[in-house]
């Protein structure tokens, strides 16, 4: 840390920096603060200048430092106030924590959204622990089978969906490719991302969304895990023409015996 005293211009910059930080104590990326500072004072603020001022403000107890890629700072108000919710102080939410919420969503709001014709059927299976241990990207967290009955078609149509669940900080472009890889065995692939409103991880959303569009992978944002109405389908999945034999083999390997019997009964086989 540079401990040399602040010059008068630095003093002006530190006041500007304090005025830029949100009053509610929300953390802001260092590079965002430096950029905003440069825009405010109409000249380039160098990294060296910025960190000198930032470190002095931390030492003075006026701002705090939060974790995150690139580092974040926030305005300290009353030390007795609880930290801003965006400053992660608690243990991160795991995929296992989110699974029951996703299951509930798929059985309620998602199923309603499919608008299945009457006489259709819906089978949901938690497959996160099923399937080969060695197969890469071959174990979706959930699979969903729909059997559609049309008015003038003699046969039923079977559609198989795969869902890959990712935590707030566990989702990246590779997760899209993971969901895509699962469509080797299914008709639809969906990526479900726990992304609360105002999450700092929103920075990755545009890239992930673009990749989903490009590969035909569905993207579902889980805003409030416990509230199915808060989920947003940002990208609709495109149907793949996966060969029947592969879909059949996948269902045999992933569905429980009970669900296999139920499916066979519904198909009349």
């Amino acid at each position, binding site marked *: 840390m540079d401990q040399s005293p602040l010059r008068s211009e630095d003093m002006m910059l530190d006041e500007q920096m304090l005025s830029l930080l949100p009053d509610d104590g*929300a953390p802001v990326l260092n*590079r*965002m603060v430096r*950029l905003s500072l440069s825009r405010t004072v109409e000249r*380039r603020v160098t990294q060296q200048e910025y960190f000198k001022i930032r470190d002095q403000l931390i030492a003075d107890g006026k701002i705090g430092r939060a974790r995150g890629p690139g580092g974040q700072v926030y305005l300290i108000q009353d030390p007795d106030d609880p930290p801003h919710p965006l400053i992660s102080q608690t243990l991160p939410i795991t995929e296992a924590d989110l699974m029951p919420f996703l299951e509930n969503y798929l059985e309620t709001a998602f199923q309603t959204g499919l608008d299945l014709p009457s006489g259709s059927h819906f089978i949901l299976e938690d497959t996160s622990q099923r399937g080969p241990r060695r197969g890469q990207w071959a174990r979706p967290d959930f699979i969903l089978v729909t059997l559609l009955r049309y008015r003038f078609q003699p046969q039923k149509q079977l559609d198989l969906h795969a869902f890959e669940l990712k935590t707030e900080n566990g989702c990246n472009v590779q997760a899209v490719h993971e969901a895509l890889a699962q469509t080797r065995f299914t008709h639809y692939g969906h990526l479900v991302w726990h992304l609360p409103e105002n999450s700092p991880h929103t*920075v*990755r959303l*545009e890239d992930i969304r673009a990749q989903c569009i490009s590969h035909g992978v569905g993207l579902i944002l889980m805003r409030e895990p416990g509230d199915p109405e808060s989920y947003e389908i940002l990208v609709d999945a495109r149907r793949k023409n996966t060969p029947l034999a592969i879909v059949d083999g996948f269902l045999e390997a992933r569905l429980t015996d009970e669900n296999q019997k139920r499916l066979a009964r519904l198909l009349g086989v």
Partner: protein
Amino acid sequence: MSAVIAIANMTGGVGKTTTAIALGETLATQGAEVLIIDLDAQGNTSFSIAGPRILQNLSETGRTIESYLNARLLERKSRRISDIIRRSVSSVLHDDEQLSLSIICATPNLRHVEQKIIVQLTKAGISWEEIEGEIRKILARDITNLRKRFDYILFDCAPGISAATEAAIKLADLMIMPTIPDFVSTQGVPAFIDSIFGEPDDNKKPWVLFTRVKARSRHQRTYKSLLRENANKPGGTYRVFQVEMPEMVHVPEAMSQSVTFTNTGRMSYNAKWRDFAQPLHALSEEVRRILPNGCGFQPDGNLQVHGG
């Protein structure tokens, strides 16, 4: 020596503002000092680059192009153009550094000032040509001074023809004419060139840049061929860029000033322009190639282009 580039077309909605901002930012990623001068009363360039807060402040403190033109032409006061430049205005980072982009903003008041200039000077018996000449004389003197401080000065001109637009085009080392290659957008090309230049000298011929190009459109292919053929004919009054700017869904999103403390997704140049960055870098290279010798900025050749 710096290069002055005017981006103009009589037709609206062909991508002048997008070209001005995207080209300006691309040149800035290569290390150039760039100044964009907004001559369009719609103020879209100003709003997109400066954002509402800075733009309001500039408007309230009289640091706009209309305030400058009003002072120089109507009030006959001395006003330095450097006083109205807003520096360090970009909200875009490249390699973690802010782009070296400055702007002279315009607001909708520019329309009133232009009307006042025409009414007052016409009443005083001054012709349209003299008004345009007067604006050009004032701008030329001030731009000469700015050439020492910026590698590129880009004029984002208003659609249609105004005295300021005409002056900027005549001052420029290069005029870029963004054009959608379709029936409607190409109709005005010869008329616009004729109204500005008559028959332009070889070194003053404007360069048509195809924008919002759809690779699969037969209609667009027909008009691209037609314009390229006409450009190559003896006596052709314009030239056509080799590079074509494709239509991409995220470009309108990139134009919105949406970087905030909590939504920093488009902070970097590559995240902002994504796949559009490739044709933009190709455009910047072609611009450098066709500028008169010695104009513009020569980067060090280590360009980082997104995608591929």
